């Protein structure tokens, strides 16, 4: 296992990459969308977004001024030993990463009531933003891998976790996801989106699956179901920033979890904005090449 300081350093660097670097498959997805786009304004917006990504990567500076709330997923292998001190190192690394990016100082101070109505004031430091609770997954292999995702506020406003009466039909669920997504994407203002979708048995499970979908999703590997949802939302002519066009959604990242014997599925949809998923990954423990 690496030292405490090494883990802090790796996690910090991972957060900075998550907040400032587009993955290669995302860049390629934008290039494909720009080539196919027939609306000049949406084309211009997507070209500007790619230009922004190049500037952010070059400067290691934020892609967006809403640098987001850190969300951490840990993949734990067979031989991994995860201690409280290890989790402390991860949390310290997140704080260091927020200072380095720099993250937007937007943590609210105060007691429960003050944090609700924002009367306790803003923490002036970038690392005053607490990460969300960590999600831990059991994986094959021997080590530990971290995924850091930065969640902006716009998609949180437009996201929805709600039940669907499936009527024993995949089509019913797909249609409902597409309809809800169209509404969310149209109101977001920061399209083209990547739709992150989790289908589970509870709100907690569906939201966790939505997070996992962003970790595992790839723009160059799309299932038939994902392609179908993307196609239906793109038919809505929302376009980049809502300016109309063929590209409202670049891709859909969908994760279906275990389901219960019931007429209901719980569906979590996050219309991840034009920069999201802002994610980066790193190996945290030794001997993990097979993860």
């Amino acid at each position, binding site marked *: 296992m690496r030292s405490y300081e090494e883990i802090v350093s790796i996690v910090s660097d991972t957060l900075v990459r998550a907040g*400032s670097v587009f993955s290669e498959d995302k860049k390629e997805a934008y290039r494909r969308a720009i080539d196919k786009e027939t609306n000049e*304004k949406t084309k*211009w*917006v997507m070209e*500007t*977004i790619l*230009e*922004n*990504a190049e*500037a*952010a990567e070059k*400067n290691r*500076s*934020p*892609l*967006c*001024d*809403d*640098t987001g709330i850190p969300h951490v997923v840990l993949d734990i292998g067979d031989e991994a030993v995860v201690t409280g001190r290890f989790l402390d190192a991860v949390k310290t690394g997140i704080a260091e990463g927020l200072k380095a*990016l*720099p*993250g*937007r*100082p*937007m943590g609210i101070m105060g007691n429960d009531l003050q944090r609700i109505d*924002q009367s306790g*004031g*803003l923490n*002036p430091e*970038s690392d005053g933003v607490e990460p969300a609770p960590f999600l831990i997954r059991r994986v094959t292999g021997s080590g530990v891998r971290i995924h850091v995702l930065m969640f902006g*506020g*716009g998609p949180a*406003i437009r996201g929805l976790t709600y039940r669907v009466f499936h009527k024993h039909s995949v089509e019913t669920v797909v249609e409902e996801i597409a309809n809800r997504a169209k509404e969310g994407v*149209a*109101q*977001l*203002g*920061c399209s083209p989106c990547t739709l992150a979708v989790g289908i589970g048995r509870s709100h907690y499970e569906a939201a966790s699956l939505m997070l996992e979908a962003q970790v595992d999703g790839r723009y160059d590997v799309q299932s038939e179901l994902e392609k179908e949802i993307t196609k239906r939302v793109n038919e809505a002519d929302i376009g980049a*920033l*809502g*300016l*109309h066009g063929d590209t409202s959604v670049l891709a859909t990242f969908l994760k279906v979890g275990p389901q219960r014997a019931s007429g209901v599925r719980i569906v979590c949809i996050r219309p991840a*904005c*034009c*920069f999201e998923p802002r994610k980066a990954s790193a190996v945290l423990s030794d001997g993990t090449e097979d993860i």
Partner: protein
Amino acid sequence: MDITTPITEEQAAALQAGDTVTLSGYILCGRDAVLPKLQKMIDDGTVSSLGIDLAGQVIFHTAVSPAGVGPTSSNKLEIESSMIPLSKAGVKMHLGKGMLKKETIEGLAELNALYAVIPPVTALLGEKTSEIRLLAFPELGMEALHLIRVDRYPAIIGAAHGRSIYE
């Protein structure tokens, strides 16, 4: 079209929804927390204490922080509801993102004021921002009222004279 602030009545009248523009000069920055306070200063007759003239001004709906600037959704309650009162006080352009209500678009038209959409490209905007000055309400941190100097910010006119690109 290249626009330098302050925006004149003639410039505002000439712009149409869908026009692509660049914006240069000094502009105000404020969002949810501070715009109602700015509105109250106008109502109370104390806005002149800020030392700026609102005539022809641009208000960019953004936080200002070490992370940079970038538009927040202009259709958030406190932001959209500020647009017409601030236009009555002279503001000529509201810069942000997202679809506005029909009544807001019509209200802006009556005042010859504009709504412009700016892509959320913080890294690029950082290269085009040269001065940042805190004007008022420092207790709001990144949501305080700021004045910044910008050089050729890219934008599209989102609503002008009762027409909108979201139609």
